[in-house]
């Protein structure tokens, strides 16, 4: 059930996106000095249908980012020669808006990293699960479009952001405020794998990993309300990874 092959549930997101863009594969630039880690990441992303370019140093990576204009970048924070955050700052100065996922062995989230998050980029602490990395890269590539739409729709599911109401088909769904927030976040990112860490950070604004499986309990309640008896399930649990909201199986 763990999605590892191209064309599986999470891989589809990337493919669907690239299909719209000149039939080219999504290109990801990886700047990471540890060759073994880089190899694993490259192999995993390749399995998911990404084209990966790898640089082992910050300076080389910056050159590649400038010349080949990748769709997304994965940058290790501690690099020989040039610090990862400096690479990103240099790119931003050149008005290169490529979304970046920063990898770091440092647990402490300092002000520079906070600035990153504000800019729409993401941060992942080492060690990380590969599913987590892929989910975050896809989330970066498919940032929800700023829309003036006040109603979100996924299949028969409808969320009215003004009235704060939800319904599936004709059936009204009664949601608590925190459940509404969770469903809104998931509908903005339908068909995307959302990991527990992502949900904790974005929906609950949690900065730490709680001992109890908070996300599962909340998700269980939401699923109970969204997927009524006899209806085909929309909230899917991806074992060992997270959750996906989508129509169909």
């Amino acid at each position, binding site marked *: 059930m763990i999605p590892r092959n191209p064309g599986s549930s999470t891989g589809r997101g990337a493919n669907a996106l690239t299909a719209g863009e000149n039939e080219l594969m999504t290109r990801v630039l990886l700047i990471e000095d540890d060759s073994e880690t880089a190899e694993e990441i490259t192999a995993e992303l390749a399995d998911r249908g990404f084209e990966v370019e790898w640089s082992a140093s910050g300076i080389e990576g910056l050159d590649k980012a400038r010349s080949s204009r990748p769709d997304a970048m994965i940058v290790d924070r501690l690099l020989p020669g040039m610090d990862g955050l400096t690479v990103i700052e240099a790119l931003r100065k050149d008005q290169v808006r490529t979304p970046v996922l920063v990898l770091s062995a440092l*647990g*402490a989230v300092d002000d520079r990293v906070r600035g990153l998050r504000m800019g729409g980029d993401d941060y992942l*602490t080492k*060690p990380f699960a590969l599913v987590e990395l892929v989910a975050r890269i896809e989330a970066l590539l498919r940032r929800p479009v700023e829309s003036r739409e006040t109603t979100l729709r996924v299949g028969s599911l409808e969320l009215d952001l003004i009235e704060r109401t939800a319904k599936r088909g004709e059936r009204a769904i009664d949601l608590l405020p*925190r459940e509404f927030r969770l469903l809104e976040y998931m509908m903005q990112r339908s068909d995307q794998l959302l990991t527990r860490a992502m949900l904790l950070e974005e929906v*609950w604004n949690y*900065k*730490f*990993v*709680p*001992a*109890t499986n*908070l996300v599962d*309990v*909340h998700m*269980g*309640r939401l699923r109970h309300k969204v997927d009524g008896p006899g209806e085909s399930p929309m909230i899917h649990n991806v074992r*060992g990874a997270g959750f996906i909201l989508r129509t169909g199986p």
Partner: protein
Amino acid sequence: MGQTHIIRSNTFRWALAVAGVFAVFVIVLFGFIYWQADQYLIARSDKMIASQLNAIAGLPNERRLEWINEHLEQDSRGVQYAGLFGADGRKIAGNLERFPPELTMNDSVQSVSVERTLPAGRETHVIRAIARHMPNGDALVIGREVDETREISHVVAQALALGLLPALCLCLLAGAWLSMRAQRRVEEVNQRVQRIIAGDLRERLPHRDVDEPFSKLTVIVNGMLDEMETMIHALAGVGNDIAHDLRTPLTRARLALERGRTNATTLEQLETVVDKAIANIDQSLAIITALLRLAEIENSQRSAAFGTVSLHEILQEVCDIYEPIAENKSIDLRVEARQRLSVLGDRDLLFEAVANLVDNAIKFTPEGGRVDIELTRGDNETIVRVSDTGGGISKQEREAVLRRFYRSDKIRSTPGVGLGLNLVAAIVKLHGFRLAIHPGPGGRMEIICPDH
């Protein structure tokens, strides 16, 4: 080499500077005394000759000659001068050969040089003198040589030689001695410190009597060394415990992989083994993450970024998040915050602390139980209380928790208390708050925030 050291030492330089300043001061003082004494003597002698002139001028002509001769005869020291000259400048009486040409007859005392006839010949002397026309046309001169001035300068020079030179020598000696002493002690301290650097943590700095500043300093440094020694030992203990804690899941992972490699015959079996190994490795990583987070909180200087945090909001949010979990276990989770109370702190960290307490409480309360989160006021303090109907923390456990507090990890192996409590303790300490753990029955934890 030792001598140049002493001369270059700071103490010695100070002694030299003090000696120099002292010498200048003494010389200026003596000079001033000399000048004052000189002025005084001249003024006195001027007054004397002026009154003598008045006395003689008041005498009849023939008595004047008599007086002058008598006056000069009585002068055993040879400092008195007198002369009576006729209108044509001819000498009538006295010990002056000629009328001093520089002397003006205006009744004021002046310094003039005169020639004096002595058996040995003529001598030029500078004297204080006064002159006046007598009623019969003669010119009268009265003078005095102020030779005491010379004597005084002689005395002053002698005093300087006798007093200043030994004083200066003493200064230099004292400076050399002090600097040598300081150097010796610094050298001694240096040797001990070198031994400490080399790893001898039991070494301490020497100190003699406690009232001396240097000894006070060594006592302070020794206190610091004591504290550091204890900490280093504690740290070594923590290191051992962490290693042990990490070894358990890693051993499990290793065993699973080893057995899986030999025994697994299908892909499903292999996947089960790998999942098991990943779960165990994740647990090791979780321990490391928690420890790093602990260190991060302990080392952080966040107090600069502290702001006003409304505790009732935090409590409400924590309850909101944990409610479904409590409900799943049929636990009644309630918040009671009648007052809106705020403290100075870091919002995220305080949220984490309260969430951890609630997480623990729910975890260790049996189904059908109850967890209360309360916000109340004590004596000059704000209290966040999390109480439950679970087993609580036994007395021994509580002592273990409080005694080794967050540097310890013994807590981790104590059933019922995870690393979460260490995190809470670290956060509470960072804020300058207190964590109170009440004995059972029922768990009761309090974060006590004193008013500042």
